[in-house]
């Protein structure tokens, strides 16, 4: 039985792939959990510590990174066959830098207060390990469409962690989400106090660590066979 079915599967693979074929969806979905850039690849942790004190900057940052990874992946993938191997890093940097500049200018034009809060970290998306990592590992060897999806997936995978960490930090640290008070006043009257540790960068490290712990105990695929 099995010997008969295998060739058929191969033939089917050779047909033109749909835009959202199973394989492409996997490229999009895997970074959300199995190959999450922050908790599994351990990339982009520095910015995750810096911009997660409040939820709003975290969301903006996540969107910015998603846009940059997606389009830099797309562009690099389109020109991948013409990039000389020896200067590929420089080419990648130029593409990423251009996109980051666009995002930065857009933020400054339309969301000045958030842009001020994110300060240097928007500019530092260029050096965000996720961007370079995906360009090197994926876009240089894949077709444009899957590369684009991979960029979106990794950007969102990064964004999920950012938002989860930011929500916890803002609720425990300032008692609010997106600026709205969520911890009721009667709790404060009873003696509850905001947790000052959550406002400090190490808190993000703890939370990401706990998240990794939880993720590995849930997702058996990630447990090292040691």
């Amino acid at each position, binding site marked *: 039985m099995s010997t008969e079915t295998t060739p058929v599967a191969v033939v089917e693979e050779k047909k033109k792939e749909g835009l959202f074929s199973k394989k492409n969806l996997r490229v999009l979905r895997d970074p959300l959990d199995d190959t999450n850039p922050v908790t599994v690849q351990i990339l982009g942790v520095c910015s995750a510590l810096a911009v997660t004190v409040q939820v709003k900057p975290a969301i903006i940052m996540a969107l910015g990174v998603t846009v940059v990874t997606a389009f830099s992946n797309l562009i690099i993938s389109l020109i991948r066959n013409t990039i000389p191997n020896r200067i590929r890093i420089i080419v990648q940097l130029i593409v990423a830098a251009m996109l980051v500049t666009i995002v930065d200018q857009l933020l400054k034009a339309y969301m000045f207060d958030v842009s001020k809060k994110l300060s240097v970290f928007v500019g530092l998306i260029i050096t965000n390990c996720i961007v370079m990592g995906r360009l090197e590992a994926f876009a240089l060897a894949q077709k444009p469409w899957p590369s684009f999806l991979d960029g979106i997936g990794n950007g969102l995978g990064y964004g999920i962690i950012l938002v989860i960490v930011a929500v916890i930090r803002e609720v425990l640290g300032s008692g609010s989400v997106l600026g709205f008070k969520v911890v009721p006043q009667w709790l404060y009257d009873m*003696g*509850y*106090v905001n*947790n*000052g*540790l*959550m406002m*400090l960068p*190490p808190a993000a490290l*703890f939370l990401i*660590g*706990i998240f990794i*712990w939880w993720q590995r105990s849930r997702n058996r695929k990630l447990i090292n066979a040691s």
Partner: protein
Amino acid sequence: MKIAQKLLNSVRPHFKEGGRFEKLHPAFDALETFLFVPGHTTSQGVHVRDAIDLKRTMFTVIVALVPTLLFGMWNVGYQHHLAYGMEASLVDNFLFGFWKVLPIIIVSYAVGLGVEFIFAIVRNHQVSEGYLVTGLLIPLTMPVTIPLWMVALGAIFCTVLGKEIFGGTGMNFMNPALLARAFMFFAFPAYMSGDIWTDLSPEAGHALVDAYSGATNLVTFDANFTKLPSPADMFWGFEQGSIGETSAFACLIGALILIATGIGSWQIIVSCVVGVLVMGLFLNVVAPADVPTHAMHTPAYYHLLMGGFAFGAVYMATDPVSAAQTETGKWIYGLLIGMFTVILRVFNPAYPEGVMLSILLMNVFAPLIDHIVVEQHIKNRKKRA
């Protein structure tokens, strides 16, 4: 005791494999071995028979902690009555402190052991005695005014992130009790520093005396060290501070117990003291001559008596799990703790309690120190060969 034995025997079958509460077996086991010497022996392999097991080790440390605990309770009452200008007898002072400190101890033990039991049941391992000491160290490093829910949070934090996440007792690379204190110091700074060291619950008919100041010695000496209380007062511990840390004398008794029983490493305690003295004397030499009240002029031995140094050096730095293991390593580890303590106290007024941070820092470096010591030893032996 006989009744307890009978009770345990009658419920034991339920906790055995196949019993109704099989899942709760670690909890039962912990309670049983806590009350009675277990009757089972190893069935195979070579093993060491020794009177000193983990339980006795932990219990010795608790005995060593008793002087600081008793003195701390008395001092809580003493400081309270002093702030209101009241005369109080020794027993009054002690009882006042007893009722203030007891809830903190109970919360610390209940929450911490609760977390340990949950982990033991979920992970199906034995409940270990490690928390017996941690549970007492946490209250002793707290100000008496600390809200109880913060103590609970600190206990949860240190048990889960300080210990269980790395595999439980004996696998932690930092001292869990200190981790709890550091967590609370950064999480609730308003409750861990400032004017919170004396319990100021109102007394009918008495007002705070004018001379009352909430500042501890560590804050005072940063501004002007000549305003510190006399060294004798600081040695005996008639000063404000965390519950257990004020009396260097009580810590000294504890140190003698720990050293005499061989539980605590005397190398670490001595090297901590030497580190403080060396750094203190060095700062005295280089201190600016035109500012006679500068913190760098503080006599070196003051640093031994002030704040929590004695407590930290005796009970925290000697933690056998998180300290350095090699003999040479212990000296390096202790010396650096002492030196960093003085540096942090003198140069960083934002973190008055330098002992806590320097011990935690050296906990992290202890494995590295051991590694270097062992490598060096191997190199020396090879050269000789």
